[in-house]
Structures are given as structure tokens and as C-alpha cells.
């Protein structure tokens, strides 16, 4: 039950955040989607032992989070939920890769740990990028961006309907599971004998709901399009935003700025 409440809370929080009006929220959704794509490709394109070169990429989520007024705690919480898989796979690197690498003249650790931390950092950056995109754009505007990218209408419609009904159905499933648990003391989940009937009942109810949804959509003049409202045109500011970040990412990709700053300071 708690995971359903958490999911609902998460979806609604991101929905609410997307409704804010800040400089980042006002940027054209297509531009934000494209910038995120470039960012993600740059992040994962770094070689597996790269750590310091990746660090300037932290600026992107930090600046956006600050400019868009996004609370950091929920994002960090989300990251903790997702991290185990990345850590689980990444932790094998120190086990299998023992090649020595020097961190400081008197400290030497294995390459496996370096690549583990590199995976971890990449994980943090990519997770933040996705969350920041949705928190500043919202589902309907992302759908509009997809439409501009010539993603077929059927898919966008299906995506938006799924998204729209997730909260409704989580609530319904949640109510059913709560009713079940109230009547079955000491059970942690659904008993084997009820797997089919409980989920099946829910499924049949859902299919009937889909029918009603379709009919009411028809009553309101549905002709195969989900109207997401008109999106403003791409403006000069949007283009500057994209080229600015794009250039920054490319520079970061080819020059290790932290190492340069470091050698300037240490004089090595």
C-alpha cells in the first residue's frame, strides 16, 4: 500500500512542480528535451575511468534546480530508490578490476573503484537530468514536444491517456488492496488463491471503465486527437539556451577543466 501512496505522491509532486512559472519552465519543451538528450549522451560517453572530467556536468542540474525552484530533497529520495541496481552492478567492478591507480602520491586504489565511482556519478547525473526535465516541463508539454518531433499521434495519445489514468487506477487498485488487507489479518500481500480473482476483477472493471471513457470522449467530440493546447513558437532565447548548454557540454567533453584548474593551483 505504501508504495502506491509514494507513487501517487511522486507523480502529483512532479505535476505541481511542472506548473510553476520560472525562466526554465518558460523554455520551449522541445528545446528542453533536446538539451537533455545531448546532456545524457555526453554524460555516458565519458570513458569508464573518468571522474574529474565529469564533474563540470554537475553544473547543469544544479543551475536548473536552483533557477526552477525545485526542492532537492524529493529528487534525492527518488535517487536513493533507483540507486541500488546501479550500485549492485557497479560494485562488481572493484571485484574484477584490480589494476592499480594513483589518486594521491601516497594513496593507490584499484581501477575498479574508480570505474565504480564513475558509474555512480553518471547514475546521479542521468537520474537528475530526467527528473529535472519532467519537473520543469510536465507530461503534456513533453507530449507536445514529441508531436513536434513527428512521433506518431497514436503513440502520443496512448502515452497521455496512460499517464492520465495512472492516478485514477492506482487509487482504485489501492482501495481494493486496502479492502483486501483489512479482511485478511496478518497477510503481507494477496494470497495465492486470490491472485487471479482479485487482479482479474480489477482488470474487468478497468476494461469497463475504458468503455465508459471512450463513450464520454465521443460525447465531448473526440475525433482521434488529444488536444494539449498550442505551444508557443521557438524563440531566440530558446535557441540561445540550447546552443549555450550544447557548447558547454562539448567543451566539457573534450577538455578536462577540473584537471586544468587543479594543475593551475598545484602547479604540476
Amino acid at each position: 500500500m505504501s508504495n502506491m501512496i509514494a507513487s501517487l505522491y511522486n507523480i502529483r509532486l512532479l505535476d505541481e512542480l511542472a506548473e510553476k512559472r520560472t525562466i526554465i519552465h518558460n523554455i520551449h519543451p522541445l528545446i528542453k528535451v533536446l538539451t537533455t538528450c545531448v546532456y545524457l549522451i555526453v554524460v555516458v560517453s565519458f570513458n569508464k575511468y573518468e571522474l574529474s572530467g565529469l564533474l563540470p556536468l554537475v553544473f547543469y542540474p544544479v543551475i536548473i534546480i536552483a533557477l526552477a525552484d525545485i526542492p532537492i530533497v524529493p529528487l534525492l529520495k527518488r535517487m536513493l530508490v533507483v540507486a541500488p541496481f546501479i550500485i549492485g552492478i557497479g560494485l562488481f567492478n572493484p571485484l574484477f578490476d584490480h589494476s592499480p591507480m594513483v589518486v594521491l602520491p601516497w594513496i593507490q586504489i584499484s581501477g575498479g573503484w574508480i570505474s565504480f565511482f564513475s558509474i555512480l556519478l553518471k547514475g546521479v547525473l542521468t537520474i537528475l537530468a530526467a527528473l529535472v526535465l519532467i519537473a520543469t516541463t510536465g507530461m503534456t508539454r513533453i507530449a507536445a514536444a514529441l508531436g513536434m518531433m513527428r512521433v506518431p499521434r497514436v503513440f502520443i495519445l496512448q502515452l497521455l491517456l496512460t499517464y492520465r489514468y495512472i492516478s485514477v487506477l492506482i487509487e482504485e487498485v489501492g482501495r481494493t488492496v486496502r479492502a483486501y488487507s483489512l479482511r485478511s489479518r496478518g497477510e503481507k500481500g494477496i494470497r495465492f488463491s486470490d491472485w487471479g480473482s482479485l487482479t482479474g476483477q480489477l482488470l474487468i472493471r478497468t476494461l469497463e471503465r475504458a468503455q465508459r471513457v471512450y463513450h464520454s470522449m465521443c460525447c465531448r467530440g473526440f475525433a482521434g486527437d488529444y488536444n494539449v493546447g498550442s505551444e508557443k513558437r521557438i524563440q531566440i532565447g530558446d535557441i540561445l539556451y540550447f546552443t549555450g548548454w550544447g557548447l558547454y557540454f562539448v567543451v566539457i567533453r573534450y577538455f578536462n577543466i577540473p584537471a586544468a584548474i587543479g594543475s593551475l593551483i598545484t602547479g604540476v
Partner: protein
Amino acid sequence: MHMADALISPVVGGAMWAATAGVAAYSVKKVQNDLDEQKIPLMGVMGAFVFAAQMINFTIPGTGSSGHLGGGMLLAILLGPYAGFLAMASILVIQALFFADGGLLALGCNVFNLGFYTCFIAYPLIYKWIMRKGYSTGRIFTGTMLSAIVGLQLGAFSVVLETLLSGKSELPFGTFVMLMQPIHLAIGVVEGLVTAAVVGFVWKARPEIIEKAASGEALGRVSIKKVLAGLAIVAVITGGVFSWFASAYPDGLEWSMFNTSGKEELEAPGGIHQTLAAVQEKIAFLPDYGFKVQEQETNANAAETEEAWPAVDAGTSVSGLVGGVMTLLLAGMTGYCIYMIKKRNKAGAV
């Protein structure tokens, strides 16, 4: 078993995106041709249903633990392969965006791993084949169980291959396979049991829902020929993207990793990196590609390689460390400053 962005390389991510986009485009075409409008809300609401049903805890008898539904097979059975694949894709898009489950770059991998094998391999080849003589409780059970298990096994193996080809993880192929397949066998059995129970129940209560979906009246049929043709197209697209990426980064953006770490990789059991690197070199160094520049780059690369690996130059790593800390501090301060300025502006406005 969602693949994460941090574990894949741009080449693998891009190739899987292309493959998934190809399958999705084909599915959209089929859905548009075969589907009546009424099914679009059905697809959407079913997608949302599976999303919600994934959160139900099913107690596994005799173990004290609980399992979950993945839903790929259920979607294929109820909506048919094309609409099922699209519904799975939209679930994964929402999970990637709102829950950071998987990731946007790994989305192609995830849709393929969880949607393609269930909808286009397990469903037509196993489920439909077992149901060809009509429905019965026994056949529904066997068909659903087998197809769920096979679909998940293929998906898990796909995760292993994608991780291996990305070269970010040091996990040797054998170990990873031995880790993933048995775990996903257990997950597959639970998935199969839940799906079989649900499909069996719905078939008894409302047989037309299950039978109509599978008869392909309004939802499109999958012919084996088309599946094979589809796979061939996917292979061509994947290959095309691979070579495009490879030749788009002749200096070995990602691939240099293989060259760079070549020494170490020779000892690692994952010898496939070398093979891939060799293939990449052949693809990238096509004769029509301005050979002089190429040679210089290669030399530069070689020089870099020797310096960069093994990275035992203490001076470089110290400056990297110091610079890294400085960068992080700077990033934190930038964020804090923007936050403070905004706060002050807000206070001023009030």
C-alpha cells in the same frame, strides 16, 4: 531489471533506441491500420492498469516473500502484440520520466527488453501456438507460464548483452549470465503464475475478452514471416546505427575506452571488447575518410593511450582531484547564489 543510463554506452543506447523506434513505428502503423478508434482509450487505460497492478504484492506460497507483476505478457494477451508493445513502451516512458526508473537513454533498451520479446517472440511463437486448438484452462496456464518465462529469460539475456557491449561494467559474461538468468527464472515463474491466474479468471468470467483479443479481429495478427522480417529490419537498423556511430566518432569517443584500456582488458574474460574495437577500427577507418588526418589522430590517440593508461602519473591525478573538488564547490556555490538571489527578489516583491 531496468537498464540504467549509467551502465550503457551511447552506441548501445543509440542502437537500441533505433531498434525500438523501428518496432514502435511498425506497431503504430499496424495499430492505425487495424485498430478501431475505440481501442485507443483501451490501450491507454490498460497501460495505466498494468502500471498500477505492478504495485500489488503477491505472497508467494511457502516462502514468506512476495512477488510482482511485470505485465508485458498480460498486455500482449489482452491487446495483441502491436498495441501491447506500445502500451508497454508508454509505461516505461512514464517510469523513466517520473520515477527515473531506467533512464531516458536506456529507454530503448528497456522497451526492447520488456516489450519486444514478450510481444513479438513469446506471444506469437509460444502463446498463440499453444492456443491454436482453442482455449482451455490447462492451455491458458501452460501458454501463459511458458511465454512469460521465455519472454523474461530473453529480456534478462538482453540486459546482459547490452551491459557487456557497453563495457562500463567489469562483470564477466559468464558470471553475469549465471547471475541474471536464474533470478529471472524465479521472477518469470511468479510473473507466469500471476498472468495465468488473471487470464484464466478473466477467460472464465468474460471469455470474449481473451478470445477476441487473440483472434486478431480488431487488434491485428502477427505472422511468423513478419516477425522474422521485423527482426531482420531491426538487425539492419542496429547494424546501421552501430556503424554510423562508429564512423561518426573516428577518434573513438566511446571506443577509445576499449583501446585505452586494452592492456587491462586482455586479462579480463570479456574478450569481446577487443573484437568490437577491431570491428570499430575497420568501420571507422574507411579509406574515403581523409586518411592523413586520420593517421594523425591515430597517432595522437596512441600517444594519449600510452599516457592515459595506466594512469599512474601522480601529478595528473592530484590536479584532477584538486580541480574536481574546486568544480564541485563552485557548482554548489552557483546553485546557492541563484537560490539566494531568487529568495531575495521574492522577498523584495512581497
